[in-house]
C-alpha cells in the first residue's frame, strides 16, 4: 500500500512540476505587467530547480544523505552507500542556478524600475506603444 501511495505521489509531483513550468511560460508570454512577467520568470526558474532536484532524488527506501562516515571504505561499504544515497550532484547544480537566477532577477527588476521611471508604467503593451 505504501508503495502505491509513494508511486502515486511521485508521478503526481512530476505532473505538478510540468504544469508549473507551463504556468511560468504562460505568465511570461501572456501577462502584460512587467512585474508579473518577472514573478512568472522566478516561478519558471524555481520549478526548473525543483525538477533538477527530483532527477537526483530516489523514491525507493532506504534514502540516506550522501555523507560517507568512514575514511577508507571497503568496496562493499561503497556499493551499499551508493545504492542508498540521494545523488549529490543535482543540489550542487541547483545552488549555482539559484545564485544565477537571483542575479538575473535583480538585473531585470532594476530594468523594470528604470522603465517605470522613464515611461511611468509597467504595462508592456504601453511601453512598446510609447516608443513608436
Amino acid at each position, binding site marked *: 500500500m505504501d508503495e502505491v501511495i509513494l508511486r502515486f505521489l511521485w508521478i503526481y509531483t512530476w505532473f505538478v512540476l510540468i504544469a508549473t*513550468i507551463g504556468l511560468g*511560460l504562460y505568465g*511570461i508570454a501572456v501577462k502584460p505587467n*512587467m512585474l508579473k*512577467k*518577472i514573478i512568472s*520568470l522566478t516561478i*519558471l*526558474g524555481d520549478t*526548473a*530547480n525543483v*525538477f*533538477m532536484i*527530483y*532527477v*537526483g532524488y530516489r523514491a525507493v527506501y532506504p534514502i540516506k544523505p550522501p555523507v560517507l562516515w568512514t575514511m577508507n571504505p571497503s568496496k562493499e561499504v561503497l556499493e551499499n552507500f551508493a545504492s542508498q544515497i540521494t545523488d549529490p*550532484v*543535482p543540489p550542487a*547544480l541547483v545552488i*549555482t*542556478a539559484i545564485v*544565477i*537566477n537571483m*542575479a*538575473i532577477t535583480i*538585473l*531585470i527588476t532594476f*530594468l*523594470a524600475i*528604470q*522603465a517605470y521611471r*522613464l*515611461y511611468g508604467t509597467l504595462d508592456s503593451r504601453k*511601453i*512598446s506603444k*510609447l*516608443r513608436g
Partner: protein
Amino acid sequence: MVDPVHHLIGLTPPITVALAFALPLLSLIVKSRRFAEVYGVSATAIAAILTAIAFYYVYLVKSPVVYTFGAWPPPVGIVYEVDKFNGLLGLVVGVVFLLVAVYSIEYLKHRSGIEWYYTLLIGMEAGMLGVLYTGDVFNLFVMLEVTSVTAYGLVAFYRSRKESIEAALKYAIVGSVATTIYFIALAIIYGSYATLNMAQIAFKTMSKVDYFFYLIGGDRLWITYTPMIAVGGAAALALALWAFSVKAAIFPNHFWLPDAHPAAPSPISAILSGLLVKVGVYAIARFLYTLFHAAQPEVLVDSALKYVVEATLYALIVLGALSALIAGILMVAQSDIKRLIAYSTIMHIGYIAMGLGLATKLGLEAAIYHTINHAVAKALLFLAAGAFIHVVGTRNIDELSGVGRLMPITTLTFIIAAFSLVGLPPFNGFVSKYLLYMAFIEKGWAPLTAIIVISSSFALIAYVKIIYGVWLKAPVKELKGIKDPSPIITIPLLILAFACVFLGIASPYILDKVITPSVVDLAYNPLNYVSEALKILTQALGG
C-alpha cells in the same frame, strides 16, 4: 606533468573574469578615466594573446587539449576541452574584442561610467570564451549566463534612453527563459546519461557500454544502455537546441534581436551581432555534431535517436531558410541604419543554420567559414555605422545623406563590409556563400540556393540604398566640420576591412589549413575528442 601551455589555455576564461572584476575595485583607488580605458584595452589584449596561444597550440601542436581544474579528471571535475573548432572561434572572439575595446575609447568619450562599461565588456569576453572552451554542459550553462547577464547590462548602457531600457528588458526576459529551458534540458541530460561531461555524453551516445564508469570501478553497472536513455537524449537535444536557437536568433526566436542590437552602444552592437549570436551557433554545432554525431548518424547506438537528429537537421534548414527570407524582406523596409544591420544578422544566422543543417563536410565548412566571415564583416559594418553615428549624431539613413564624401575612410570600410556581406568577390562573404551553394548542389538540393540568392539580393538593395544615400545624395542638413573620426576609431575599422579582404583572397589556403581541420575535429573525429578525456582519466587513476 601538465604542459604549462595547457594552464594558459585552460585558465583563459578565469583570468579574464578576474581581470573584469578587478576593474571596479581598482577604479575606486585610481579615479581616472584614462586608467579604465588603458586597463580595458590591456585586459582584452591579454585575452587576445591567450586565445592566440590556444589557437596556435591546437593547430600546430596537439588537439584537443583537455585542461582539468584542480586536477579532477573528466567525468568528476569540470574540464575545458579546446579542439580546432573552438580554438578558432576563440581567436576570433579575442581579436574582435580587442579592436572593440580600442574603438570604445573614442566612441564613449563623452559618457560617464566607463569603468562599468569595461567591466561588463571584459566579463562578456570571459563568458564567451568559457562557453567556447568548456567541455562540460553545466559549465556551458553558467558561462552562457555570464555572457547573457553582461549582454543585458550592456544593452541597457544608455540607461536614460527609453528604447535601450525597453530592449534590454525584452532581451533579458526572453534570454533568461531560454537559459532556464536549457537548465531543464540539463536535468534531462543528467537523468539520462548520468554525466555532465561532453566527452562522456559523446561516448555514451555511440556505445552501449560506459567506459568512463568502467575505469572508475563500476564494473557491475557499466552496461548502461536502455532505450529510455535515448528518449531522454532526444528530449534534451530538442530543449537545448530550442534554447540555443533563442541565443542564436534563428526564426521564430529572432524577435528580440532587432530591438536589442541597435539599442546598445555601437561597439556593443558589433559584439552582439558579430560574436554573441555565434555563441549560440557554436553550442548548436557542438551539441549536434560532437555530442549527437549528426554528421555520421550511423554511429549512434539508438536508431530512434537517429531519426530525432535527422529531423533536427531538417528543422535547422527550414528555419534557417525562413530566417534568411523574412529578415531579407524586413531589411529593405528599415530607416534606422543599425536596425537594418541587425536584420542582416538574422539573415546570416539563417545561412549558417542552413549550412549546419546540411550535415555534409562542405556544408559544415561553409557554415564555419561563414561564422567567421560574418563575425568580422558584421563587426566592421556596425563599427563603421557607429563612426557615422558618432560624427553626425543620427541613426536615420536619410539624415546621413552626403556625409560619405567627407568621411572617406569610414565610407570605404562600410562599403567593404556591406559588399562582403552581400557576397561580392573578392571579399570573404563571397567565398563562404559560394561554398554554401556548392554544398546545396552537392547534396542535390539546388533549388534551396534560390533562397540565398533572393535574400542576398534584398540585402544588396538595402545596402545600396545606404551607400547611395551616404555617398551621392545631397545633404539634408548643414555638414560643417564633419570629417573622419580620430585614428582610435579608424584603425580598428581598417584592420577589420583588411581582414575581410584577406579572408577572401587567402581563402583557398585558409580553407585547407584552418577550416577543414576544424570541421574534422567538430564532426568527423568523435573518438579523438573522447579518447583525450579518457587518457586524462586513466592517468589520474594511476594507469
